[in-house]
């Protein structure tokens, strides 16, 4: 049975193809269109998935969209009505936005793919999250918790899933918290207040929180109150996201927390204003964690299950995940590599396969590498055209040479195999460097990532060595598989892991198993032989504001425009020869007089 899953129209659109119960491929539209967080209907992603699997659209048994569009429209319209007459400005925009494309999903899919409308199915948004979390996790029975900004109406759902010995699968959502009461929206409101982009920069708030003290927790608790049944509700007087599209926080919010940050001003943590913003971030982070832990703890008591599958955009908050693991009573916590909306494409397809069609359960490969593969030959060709130094190396030589580069303090762009699904670079499209000196972190921020100084970098370590350098609790290694948890760096190693140790002594560590990425695993060991520490700094191969690279040519352009010293794609190694871009510009300037003549 061939099932195509699609997520689209809000953020991170993606497509995934499941054949006979197993995902074959999946990719986010942004990786192909090169527009970060591309929310457009993922036509390129769909085309790539079908082409990769050699499947014609008419051979598909079903196409599953990750949410129910009319139910979502119902929520948007109801919110506009409830906010009458304050919603008069946002109403035309909301209607044009929804009625223009978003509610006609069945027709859009049908017209793009030529499949009959009867083959087009719709899961609920949180069902998709739940399926992405549970059906990809190596567990037979688990509690499920999904939480994000909002789906149709639900913002947080709890339930449980089971794979029975006869191959039948069930996912049952028990309860939900409904819009506008939303942990995701609370966090996003602070994201906007702190001058960052909503739905994109929430991780910056988490990074900033490390620099602050949770001195405003009482104020944040005025915004979110616990209800007697263990859920929560937002005090809507502090918010405007439910009634207007212009701003997510109200004037009362500003009265409580002070003026918002100007997005174009850097955060200076030396100033009182900068520290206030950091304290704000720390406070909302603490309240988010406390609330999630309470809900997870109650869910553990209710279900008595040892495993929890966590999905939805909030599950990208590694600090909160670690506290849930440590304090909720669950022994294992499973967070998929793409817990946000992109992963819903996989979730929707798997949900249809197991639940709707009742197909027998199959194990899903436990890795994030579902996208297009990189071509080292393509890199060799374009780099040679530019006169760069290109080496084609044998496999062992690639590892040894790269380990030497890293030991010599060089910054390496590392591309191999299939692209990751989800926001984390987990070893196939990474920038790797030595993790020891703080200067390396500063150099990366300054010359490569062009980003705020307060944002930390993550380490990658072989799973067998993880516990030596990081304080992983029971179940921590699993959470660290896809970089989903934040754990303390052991104090005795912080001095030698400065570039990956956050200001609060923690790191968002990736614990790597050999089977998941054998070449990177070998590289870690080779580097360990040279430096004594088999740990590398691993950050995504992209520049600020751009999606993670996909093809070799995109890696190459990132290499040229940044301070990356060496670029590897499979067995091709490219090293930089001088500042090529500056040289080309000078050459081109020489032709100006001819061109001026032509312009005249």
């Amino acid at each position: 049975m061939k099932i195509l899953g699609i997520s689209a129209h809000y953020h991170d659109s993606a497509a995934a193809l499941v054949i006979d119960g197993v995902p074959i491929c999946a990719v986010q539209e942004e990786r192909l269109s090169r527009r970060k967080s591309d929310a457009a209907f993922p036509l390129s992603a769909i085309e790539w998935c079908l082409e990769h699997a050699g499947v014609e659209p008419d051979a598909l048994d079903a196409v599953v969209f990750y949410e129910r569009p009319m139910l979502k429209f119902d929520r948007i319209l109801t919110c506009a009505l409830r906010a009458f007459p304050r919603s008069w400005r946002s109403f035309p925009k909301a209607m044009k936005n929804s009625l223009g494309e978003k509610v006609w999903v069945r027709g859009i899919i049908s017209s793009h793919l030529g499949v009959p409308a009867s083959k087009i199915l719709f899961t609920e948004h949180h069902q998709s999250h739940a399926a992405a979390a549970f059906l990809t996790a190596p567990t037979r029975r688990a509690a499920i918790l999904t939480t994000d900004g909002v789906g149709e109406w639900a913002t947080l759902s709890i339930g449980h899933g089971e794979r029975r010995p006869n191959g039948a699968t069930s996912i049952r959502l028990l309860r939900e918290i409904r819009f506008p009461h939303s942990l995701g929206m609370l966090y996003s409101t602070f994201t906007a207040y702190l001058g960052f982009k909503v739905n994109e920069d929430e991780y910056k708030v988490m990074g900033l929180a490390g620099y602050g003290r949770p001195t405003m927790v009482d104020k944040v608790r005025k915004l979110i109150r616990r209800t007697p049944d263990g859920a929560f509700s937002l005090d809507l007087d502090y918010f405007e996201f439910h009634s207007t599209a212009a701003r997510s926080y109200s004037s009362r919010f500003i009265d409580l927390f002070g003026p918002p940050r100007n997005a174009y001003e850097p955060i200076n943590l030396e100033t009182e204003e900068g520290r206030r913003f950091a304290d704000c971030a720390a406070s909302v982070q603490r309240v988010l964690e406390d609330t999630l832990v309470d809900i997870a703890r109650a869910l553990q008591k209710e279900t008595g299950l040892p495993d929890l599958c966590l999905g939805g955009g909030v599950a990208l908050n590694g600090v909160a995940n670690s506290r849930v693991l440590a304090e909720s009573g669950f022994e294992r916590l499973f967070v998929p590599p793409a817990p946000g909306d992109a992963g819903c494409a996989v979730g929707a397809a798997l949900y249809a396969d197991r639940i709707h069609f009742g197909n027998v359960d199959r194990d899903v490969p436990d890795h994030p590498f579902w996208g297009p593969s990189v071509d080292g030959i393509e890199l060799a060709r374009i780099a040679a055209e530019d006169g760069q130094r290109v080496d084609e190396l044998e496999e062992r030589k690639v590892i040894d040479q790269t380990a030497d580069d890293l030991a010599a303090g060089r910054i390496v762009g590392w591309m191999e195999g299939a692209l990751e699904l989800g926001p984390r670079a987990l070893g196939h499209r990474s920038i790797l460097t030595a993790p020891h000196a703080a200067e390396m972190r500063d150099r990366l921020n300054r010359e490569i990532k062009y980003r705020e100084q307060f944002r930390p970098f993550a380490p990658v370590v072989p799973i067998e060595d993880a516990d030596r350098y990081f304080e992983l609790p029971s179940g921590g290694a699993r959470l660290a598989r896809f970089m989903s948890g934040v754990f303390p760096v052991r104090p005795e190693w912080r001095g030698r892991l400065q570039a990956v140790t956050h200001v609060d002594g923690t790191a968002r560590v990736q614990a790597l198993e050999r089977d998941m990425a054998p070449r990177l695993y070998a590289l870690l060991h080779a580097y360990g032989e040279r430096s004594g520490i088999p740990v590398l700094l691993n950050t995504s191969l992209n520049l600020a504001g751009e999606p993670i690279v996909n093809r070799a040519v995109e890696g190459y352009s990132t290499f040229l425009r940044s301070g990356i010293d060496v670029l590897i794609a499979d067995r091709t190694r490219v090293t930089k020869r001088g500042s090529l871009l500056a040289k080309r510009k000078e050459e081109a300037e020489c032709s100006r007089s001819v061109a001026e003549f032509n312009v005249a």
Partner: protein
Amino acid sequence: MIPANGFDRILAPLHRWIWRDPQRRVQKLLRFGETEIDGGRDLLRAAEVTSNSLLRRLYLVHATDEHRHGVLFRRRAAELLRASASSSASAFQADWLTPGGHGLDDLEVGEESDDSMLAFLHLSEKSAASRFTVYRDVLQFDRPTQEVFDDILHDEMFHMNYTLTQLIRVSPERHRLHLWRARLSRLWKAYLRLATALAGVIGGLLLTIQYFVVLPLFAFFAKRAQRQDQTGWTPVSPERNNNSLSRQY
């Protein structure tokens, strides 16, 4: 020195009036910043899709320049904001009166050939350079902003020139034809933008009228129903878990 075209020169008094307003100046600089950075991304895409190695390198230089321009515009806007200690936006931005930079927003980069891309880029750069020259001239009262435009205009000259020389190189016989096509295409896109904007205004007006005429009764019932809403957990019924996936609601 890049001379401004006649139309832009005629509009100079209007530009001066608009740029005099500090809030509009900030908003326009921020908008230019966004546009330049977006344009840089599109050029990056162009560099990644072209099979011509020289063009790839030039597009990368161009993309880097555009990114730098975006940073310059944003930095200057931030300085002005800091000086005015105000982050509020003026209600009337007058953007339609004074179009801004030269983002490639309505260009499908992946579908353009090298020659059509170069022709489009050349005209965009020429047009932006002409407009930026006028902006630079009318900003005599704000020397730092004027210097930003000066700096950018230096790069614009290079962009204008290399796009034309490369167009002549890749299409020696038909470069004029490509330029005319690009001119017509820009005209058509300008018409489409105008028509879309007009349709948006009309649509918005009709929806606003409907909002006040049709919705009040429904709003009354919606608000009444809202009072009965309970906060906290809402059970998910077993039927909902078993709902058919054929339904969109």
